[in-house]
């Protein structure tokens, strides 16, 4: 496999604000690469630089080895951008919207018509193809929004939170389309703040916050960064300092996040186990109102890396 997208030390400053702070990653052909982070993390700014809408303060972007800074027109031909906002002409029908975007990329005639038919079927809008899109539901508009970015059959597709604000059924449909695109040999950069989507869809992920990539790898690789074991969440009337001191005295127990009245701890798989850990804490005079035990996920990793929850 070869890298379709290479991002090197990309940085963007708006005055005193550093929106993207030297991120680097690459995406291989046929891969879905996820950008996971909360709102304001720098995902959209990164996408804007990758597709040439914003000029980076520093760093470089290459698509199939071509620099966006040196040859933006050539790079843009290879990109399909699906923006976060639904950007369609509501006066026009789905077919007219698709034909317009195909025309922008120089497509026409029977080739364009058959491509439009194919996409309408793929996103399930063939029955409403001639209707003005202002009559469409939010989910239908989202599906068309996705199709518009695919009409010229680009090599690399940039999807910026394509499932924001839609119902589960429409989301499922969009995720199916994305999987079909990749099955057809295309490459996808997918930004989201939905953990389940990232886990379900992406081959590899980068967790981004405050403009920095905090960690990247496959879902499995990322989870191992928390350590092997079970996640123990306790709530009660305790002080963070008291609990921290108590945890250090219990074998196989590691702190993930400890606050007053609430703490997340990792019980090592190689250690004595959950019961032993709890007994160790009780023996030091601690009591809890609520105890939860579960397997760690990306949300927990995000909490460990950033100190805050993904949806905040």
């Amino acid at each position, binding site marked *: 496999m070869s890298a379709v997208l290479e991002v090197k030390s990309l940085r963007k400053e708006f005055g005193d604000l550093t929106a993207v702070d030297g991120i680097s990653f690459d995406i291989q052909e046929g891969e879905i690469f996820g950008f996971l982070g909360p709102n304001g993390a720098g995902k959209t700014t990164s996408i804007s630089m990758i*597709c*040439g809408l914003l000029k980076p303060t520093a760093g470089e972007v290459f698509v199939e080895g071509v620099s966006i800074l040196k040859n933006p027109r050539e790079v*843009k031909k290879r990109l399909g951008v699906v923006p976060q*906002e639904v*950007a369609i*002409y509501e*006066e026009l029908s789905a077919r*007219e919207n698709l034909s317009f975007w195909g025309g*922008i*990329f120089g497509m026409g005639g029977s080739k364009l018509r058959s491509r439009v038919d194919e996409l309408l079927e793929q996103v399930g809008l063939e029955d409403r193809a001639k209707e003005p899109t202002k009559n469409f539901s939010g989910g239908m508009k989202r599906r068309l929004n996705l199709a518009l970015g695919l009409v010229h059959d680009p090599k690399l597709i940039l999807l910026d939170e394509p499932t924001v604000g839609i119902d589960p059924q429409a989301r499922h449909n969009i995720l199916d389309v994305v999987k079909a695109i990749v099955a057809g040999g295309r490459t996808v950069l997918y930004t989201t703040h939905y953990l389940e989507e990232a886990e379900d869809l992406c081959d590899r992920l980068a967790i981004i916050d405050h403009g920095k990539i905090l960690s990247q790898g496959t879902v499995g690789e990322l989870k191992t960064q928390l350590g092997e074991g079970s996640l123990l969440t306790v709530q009660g009337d305790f002080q963070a300092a008291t609990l921290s001191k108590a945890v250090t005295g219990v074998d196989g127990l590691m702190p993930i996040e400890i606050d007053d009245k609430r703490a997340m701890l990792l019980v090592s798989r190689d250690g004595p186990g959950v019961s032993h850990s709890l007994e160790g804490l009780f023996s030091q005079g601690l009591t809890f109102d609520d105890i939860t035990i579960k397997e760690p996920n990306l949300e927990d990793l995000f909490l460990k890396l950033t100190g805050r929850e993904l949806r905040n």
Partner: protein
Amino acid sequence: MWVLIRKDLLRRWRSPLSTIVMIIFPLFMSLAIGSISGGSDGGSEFPRIKVLLQNNDKDGFLSNAIMGSAGQGEGQEYLELVEVGDEGTELMNEGKASAMIVLPENFTTKVFNREPVEILVVRNPAEGIKPEIVVQGADVVATYLDQGARLLGEELGIIQVMMESESIPASAKVGAVAAGITTKINGVEKYLFPPLVEIGSVKEDDEEEGSSGGFSVFGYILIMTTVMAMMFVATRSMGDIFEEQNNGMLKRQLSTPMGIGMIVGAKTVFGVVFGVIVLMILGIIGFVLGWISQPVDLLAAVLLGISFSLAACGFLALILSLVKTEKQAGIMGWLVIMGMSAIGGSMMPIHNMPAPLQAAARYTINFWAVDGYTRLVYSGEGLSDIMGNIVRLLIIGAVTITVAQALLVRRFREVS
């Protein structure tokens, strides 16, 4: 670029409300203002004014003289005088005439005795200009009567006695009175009869020079307001860039190989095409309604439309490039259209404006368009005659679009 223009034309076609409003606006304004101003009589240079005359001084010499002389000679061309009795008020209430002049009882006696007397003019409130002309005319008559009574008081007294006498006055006496009147009038003639109002008629001369004639107030106002409507079309077209910025379409287009220069250029071409379409629709409606009833040099009309639309798009693009938000663009665009229309002849005829404003009008793009179209339609002129107007507008368009394009490219280089 054609893909972008076609898309915008299709959008206007699918959502035609704003276009319909832009077409209805000049038609409505022409109908409204034209009706108030009297519209057209189908060829005469100025429409006739219907005036009711209610004479309550039936036996009076002066009142009968006024009734007999009014509407004679040149006045007959402009005035349709109808003598009425008490039903005059009812007719006015029904809006059957532009005005009603009421001569009071003992009008003649009071004038001869130099007593205060009042001529009442009842105006039709539904009309604007015609009743005003009647009031002004009555004012002139009153002035003449007043000054005449003061000047010829002695002779009028003698005439009154003669007329009330049952015997025929002696020729010598009549001759003496006449001589006295002549002497007095000759002495003050240049003060009493200056050319207060001069109604110049150019109709016959124009016809000799090949005028297409057929003046219509409706047609004239249609030209004025169509030019203003084309400015609104230009604003709508160029302002679409802001709308596309807000709904994400601009960003999406800029993520394709297209540059902002291409997008601004396409909006300009679309504005010109759309402006000319609106112009042609209004022109055809004007012909169908008979407001423009003579042949016009179509090539010149279209070229003038293209050059004016280009100038309007350029001017408005320049304004849009200097403001920051869609709201500011809307306000500034509206102010510029209104200002240029008011000064440039899209709201009132240039020749009705004070001299300083007439001079200022030449610095507006409206002036050159209105001037060009009125010359094409009412003076029978052709392309070569209005080439100066077209060239001026093309230069304004080229300069403003070049500057605006540069500013907009800089503005939208980074749209996120």
